[in-house]
């Protein structure tokens, strides 16, 4: 309990920020000093560079790991162990023809890659990647930005990222991209709800939306990480939802090659295609970072007693290590699992994840407020789960479809009789 008490104190300083006396009228004191602006710009540049570099590495890592898992060699020509392969591919794409199909909506077609790239990039801004550092008298956290609504930036951007896929498919003016984008947009909004609900569970325990505060609440050691504190289930839901949100395997129906050629980006070539590709892998990295932030204590080490966390480098190392685990996980899943069917995908999202995550977050709230009496809530929820199941059964029964086509055999074999004279007169 002493541990818990200490968080409560730390949280109020982090969340509360300045005392109210200083915030009498923010209009007076809103100016931002130029030094701060410079620091901000430097931070952003560094973060951007690091992110781009890690994307390049990630692509290489994925290809290499997948080939290992499939007993292939993978890229091994460009650079040592094929490390420069991604770079080479990128450069190659610059030299390719930039086609805009003649049936396309040109403006939207050109806009779509940005709408995919920018959200993936902005999500990274709220992920705390390290501890507190002091440079030239200015103390700041290793994090691009820590707005008070931090985690909502993630959700807002993931809801914006629907646009990229949706518009890319529609603007192409072609069949397969359109189908891919229809699937993708329905899929993404479906899993976004589950995503939001699990994040709420996290917010309930930490009492703040700021990512830095969420991380601070998970100090000092691994048993206080939200993954355990919330009872693992929200984390599992989050992992599934985020995977589907990014259209990663096994939820990559968007670009199911066997059915849809290349999915929503079939008509894209050259650097526009590269931007989509970049955004996808950037999403993998940033979302892994979000997961670490929300559930695995961000840059905190597992046990502070043995391994220091207050150092300049250790937090970042911890963070990278945790993120790496998730990156490995994604590649592994891609290699191991087959793609879902569309109805299975929708069923998982709507019939399992969303009800479960809603129930779980209410449970968390009930436990906080009522303690053991929350069991009553849980019992009621289980009963309601039965009711929901009943509704699913009714729904599937009501929408049972009559096959409109006769059996193939009869279609082939029916002999069409010549109309008799009488019938013709009739």
């Amino acid at each position, binding site marked *: 309990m002493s541990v818990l008490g200490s968080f409560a104190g730390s949280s109020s300083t982090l969340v509360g920020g300045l*005392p109210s006396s200083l*915030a009498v*009228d923010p*209009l007076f004191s809103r100016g931002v000093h130029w030094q701060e602006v410079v620091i901000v710009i430097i931070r952003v540049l560094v973060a951007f560079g690091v992110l781009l570099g890690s994307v390049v590495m990630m692509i290489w890592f994925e290809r290499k790991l997948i080939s290992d898992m499939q007993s292939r060699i993978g890229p091994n020509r460009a650079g040592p162990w094929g490390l420069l392969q991604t770079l080479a591919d990128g450069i190659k794409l610059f030299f390719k023809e930039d086609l805009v199909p003649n049936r396309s909506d040109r403006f939207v077609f050109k*806009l779509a890659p940005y709408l995919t790239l920018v959200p993936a990039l902005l999500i990274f801004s709220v992920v705390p990647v390290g501890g507190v550092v002091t440079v030239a008298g200015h103390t700041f956290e290793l994090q691009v930005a820590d707005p008070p609504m931090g985690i909502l930036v993630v*959700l807002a951007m993931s809801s914006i990222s629907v646009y990229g896929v949706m518009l890319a498919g529609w603007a192409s003016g072609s*069949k397969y991209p359109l189908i891919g984008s*229809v699937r993708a947009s329905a899929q993404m909004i479906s899993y976004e709800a589950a995503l939001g609900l699990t994040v709420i569970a996290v917010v309930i325990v930490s009492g703040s939306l700021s990512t830095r505060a969420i991380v601070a609440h998970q100090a000092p050691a691994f048993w206080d990480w939200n993954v355990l504190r919330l009872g693992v289930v929200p984390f599992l839901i989050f992992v599934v939802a985020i995977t589907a949100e990014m259209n990663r395997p096994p939820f990559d129906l968007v670009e199911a090659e066997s059915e849809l050629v290349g999915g929503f980006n079939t008509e894209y070539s050259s650097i526009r295609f590269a931007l989509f590709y970049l955004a996808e892998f950037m999403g993998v990295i940033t979302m892994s970072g979000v997961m670490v932030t929300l559930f695995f204590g961000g840059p905190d080490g597992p046990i502070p007693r043995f391994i220091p966390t207050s150092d300049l480098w250790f937090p970042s190392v911890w963070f990278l290590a945790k993120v790496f685990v998730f990156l490995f996980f994604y590649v592994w899943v891609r290699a191991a699992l087959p793609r879902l069917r569309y109805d299975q995908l929708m069923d998982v999202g709507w019939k399992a994840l969303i009800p479960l995550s809603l129930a779980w977050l209410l449970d968390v709230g009930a436990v906080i407020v009522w303690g053991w009496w929350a069991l009553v809530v849980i019992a009621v929820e289980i009963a309601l789960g039965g009711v929901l199941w009943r509704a699913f059964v009714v729904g599937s029964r009501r929408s049972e479809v009559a096959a*409109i086509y006769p059996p193939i055999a009869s279609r082939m074999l029916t002999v069409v009789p010549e109309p008799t004279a009488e019938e013709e007169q009739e």
Partner: protein
Amino acid sequence: MNPSQVNVIGMDLVAAVHKTGPDIATFVVSAIIIIAGAIGVVFSRNPVHAALSLVMTLFGVAVLFIEQQADFLAAVQIIVYAGAIVVLFLFVIMFLGVDRRENIAAEPLHWQRPLALVLMAAALAGVIALGVGSHWATGQQAVAGSTTAGGHSNVYLLGKSVFTTYLYAFEATAALLVIAVVGAVVLARRPSLPSVEPETDARGAAVSGQPGPDGGLHDAAPRGSAAQDASPADVRAGQSLVKEAGR
């Protein structure tokens, strides 16, 4: 809050408030974004472009919210409006086949557009007159209290407000959501009996095919296997297949 006291404080602050450079810059930029987006919504011939312009406007409004320190509202603006409602618009526009350019030339009431312009000018003048020459009780920090009074975050205060002052409104929203759902289903439904209008009936009888056992939800397209696995349920594509088979 005692109103008279509020008024005194408000009056005192009117003179004192002045905005700093970044504030003005933020405001100007987001105002341009908002207005450009709004103009785009009105003048785009392609509904998809109009919807995207709407997103632009919403984004600009979110920036203004941030500038007013309403962080949470800004996030909600993006998540709900841009992320859900305009997506629904786009679904309807793109996937239900209304994404065609509108023919604006056809205008049943030819005096309508000049009248709209006049009314718009009048409304604009009214708004400006109101903004400049009137007494506002709100707008100064002191009235509603700081948006982050007492060291609490914006969300905290908003939540407090929702669960105390506006509790009844909050619960009433649930009813609103329920009828929204019922309405969506009712309107997406097809009749279980044939239409009574003779014109539609002559065709409707042929078109409606099988109304299904329950009068439940029906897709706009015939529900072959194609519709089931969400591949294109294009009406014409389906029919021309039949046509080919018939030959």
